[in-house]
């Protein structure tokens, strides 16, 4: 015969477990009746813009937010419509998404994974956001993408360049329009070989986190394939501010190229330090010493000032592009804010339109219907030429820009010049490429 032992401690424990169960996030239970998380029931639909509003990438985040606000304005029929008029899909008509007016909430990622997850979670659970988008860091993008997969909402990544985002950490609910480290290497290496020759010795300084590792691996593989030798790769702490002790050994290393796999403040400081040490005036192995920055952004170039002059890198998009989509976006953004948009602003604006268009075409806000509409989707008119959202990894494939720091800028925004528009075919890779191996999309989670 069993005996029931009721103790005070037992009651408290049971109560705590039951309480925790009842307090489970609403996305695990409340939305189940509608078939997917945060199904819009009224006349509006809420999007969640998760961008760095504080911290070192706050300026980039502010530009992303401007682009999102512009996208919402255009989706709701305001302004001049921007890229809606150049987008190859004509599903969007300026009446919101599926007849619902688009509203938005914002979160602050602080460029910290835990803070970004917390703000995304809050937007999903408290504000009823049906889609999360934004970010300026791969670490953050991967963390938030994982959360959105669990929560059953679509994640449209902002600025994230690590191979892992659509490689080993890819998720069925996550989509990336921005290019990646592999594409930077594939686009940049031939231009570097053409400019600097095939017989070069490269010294890499690499930010010690997911983006830095995959960027270094990509650019090293691409340049080595063209005959370059990688003489050294030194990992630098993300928190480093003065890179002089990492730059000084380059002077006598026998290298004639320095590759700075750094972004943001790291890139501004390492490039400034490299120029201070006279690397650009140095002649090694009978050749002029060169510096390469694989991933450029206009905001970073502004931070680095005159140090970027003549230095090659790659970028996802640039405001000086002359296709109709880019011109329409620059006009809308420039008229509203008084300066041209950054590449971060562009990718965020485009991601919002792509999400809205997918929902419109699918006729549903169900994340799985939207994912299906985006998978294998071919489109044009959004500033990068014909683009494919590949079904196998949810990565966009499009032309990549190779850029160079401008020698004679005419304004504070005119810092980079486009050297080459590398065709999409040159930056494509197989879905099972070793640099992207190790993960699987899994299946779409509608959250119910």
């Amino acid at each position, binding site marked *: 015969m069993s005996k029931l032992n009721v103790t005070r401690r037992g009651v408290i424990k049971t109560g705590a477990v039951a309480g925790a169960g009842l307090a489970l996030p609403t996305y695990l239970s409340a939305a189940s009746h509608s078939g997917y998380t945060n199904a819009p029931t009224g006349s509006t639909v809420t999007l969640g813009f998760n961008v760095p509003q504080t911290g070192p990438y706050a*300026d980039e985040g502010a530009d992303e937010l401007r682009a999102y606000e512009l996208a919402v304005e255009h989706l709701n029929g305001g302004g001049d419509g921007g890229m809606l008029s150049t987008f190859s899909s004509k599903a969007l008509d300026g009446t919101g998404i599926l007849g619902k007016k688009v509203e938005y909430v914002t979160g602050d990622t602080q460029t910290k994974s835990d803070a970004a997850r917390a703000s995304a979670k809050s937007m999903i659970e408290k504000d009823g956001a049906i889609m999360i988008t934004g970010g300026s860091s791969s670490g953050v993008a991967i963390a938030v993408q994982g959360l959105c997969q669990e929560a059953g909402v679509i994640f449209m990544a902002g600025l994230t360049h690590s191979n892992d985002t659509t490689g080993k950490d890819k998720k069925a609910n996550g989509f990336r329009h921005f290019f990646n480290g592999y594409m930077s290497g594939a686009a940049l290496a031939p231009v570097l070989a053409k400019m600097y020759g095939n017989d070069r010795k490269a010294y890499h300084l690499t930010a010690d986190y997911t983006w830095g590792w995959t960027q270094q691996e990509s650019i090293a593989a691409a340049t080595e394939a063209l005959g370059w030798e990688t003489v050294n790769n030194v990992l630098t702490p993300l928190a480093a501010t003065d890179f002089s002790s990492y730059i*000084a050994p380059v002077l006598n290393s026998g290298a004639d190229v320095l590759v700075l796999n750094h972004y943001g403040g790291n890139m501004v400081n390492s490039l400034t330090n490299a120029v201070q040490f006279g690397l650009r005036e140095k002649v090694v192995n009978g050749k002029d010493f060169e510096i390469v920055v694989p991933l450029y952004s206009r905001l970073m170039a502004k931070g680095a000032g005159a140090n970027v002059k003549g230095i090659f890198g790659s970028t996802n998009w640039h*405001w000086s592009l002359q296709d109709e989509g880019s011109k329409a976006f620059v006009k809308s953004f420039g008229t509203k804010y008084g300066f041209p948009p950054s590449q971060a602003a562009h990718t965020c604006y485009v991601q919002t339109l792509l999400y809205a268009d997918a929902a419109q075409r699918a006729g549903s806000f169900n994340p799985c219907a939207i994912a299906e509409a985006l998978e294998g989707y071919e489109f044009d008119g959004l500033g990068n030429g014909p683009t494919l959202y590949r079904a196998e990894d949810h990565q966009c494939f499009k032309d990549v820009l190779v850029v160079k720091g401008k020698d004679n800028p005419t304004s504070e*925004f005119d810092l980079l010049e486009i050297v080459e528009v590398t065709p999409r075919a040159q930056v494509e890779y197989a879905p099972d490429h070793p640099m992207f191996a190790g993960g699987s999309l899994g299946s779409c989670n509608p959250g119910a």
Partner: protein
Amino acid sequence: MDAIILQVLNGLDKGSAYALIALGLTLIFGTLGVVNFAHGALFMIGAFCSVTLQRILNLSFETVDPTKTDFLGNPLKVKTPYVESWFGPEMGSTIIDWSVPLAILFAIPIMILIGFVMERGLIKHFYKRPHADQILVTFGLAIVLQEVIKYFYGANPIQTPAPEALTGVAQLTSTIVYPIWRIVYFCFAVAIIGAVFAFLQFTTFGMVVRAGMADRETVGLLGIDIDKRFTLMFGLAAAVAGLAGVMYGPINAPNYHMGMDFLVLSFVVVVVGGMGSLPGAVAAGFLLGILESFASMKEVITLVPGINQIIIYLVAIVILLTRPRGLMGRKGVME
């Protein structure tokens, strides 16, 4: 051998910034007994004095160049700095070029004033409170100050380049080159440190301050208003941190977070040097700067992975275990 010499130079250079910040920190601690976590913010504000002067000197009027267009296709507005129109293009651009050294003169009164306001307005109310309270309030102040700077100047770094004549590298030996501005920074730091020591050592004011640091009560009993002098020392410490920031701008572009980047390291420097010891702070600043540089060498990282990130803290642990008062700490301080 060249690599070792270069890392020693790098260490002296890094150590210069650590020593200047730690000097001010320990000066405040030694005189007022306050653990000032807002000291890094003073370094950052100094750097932004330089940014501000650069912006003032670049204040411009606009003219329209109809032959060129901006990004929207409108006629291009060309900006010409007022100083160039007042003093001529050559003289005007020279003034702008020398904005960082000029910012020294600009920063001194501003930093002293900020030091005064900080001390009289906030910190004096915490003299008799526990160190934990002082740390909390000054840390909070540091965050407020950096957010204010971010609000006005943005989060992106802002370049404050060295004058053209002081950029480039100096050929020290046939195989060793080193950036001229970094040598200037080291010499500047040595001069400032020397000036502070001379001031404390050879002036009556300095003598009273040193006496107050040794025994505040007795000096007070002699009828000397030691509090007033200590307030002035707070202003001096703020100026030293500010000048360190002004001159650091060309090495790394100022950003709102730079104070925090240096703060923790500077505290370690103060603790290693010995709380309240001025020579200790300077010696520890240079020592830790050099060790940090050596720990960044690929050969060392290969031998002990991750050593570049922990070396300073490792040394601090070893020194505090073997010499609990730090390198030159005095008995009875923080004990």
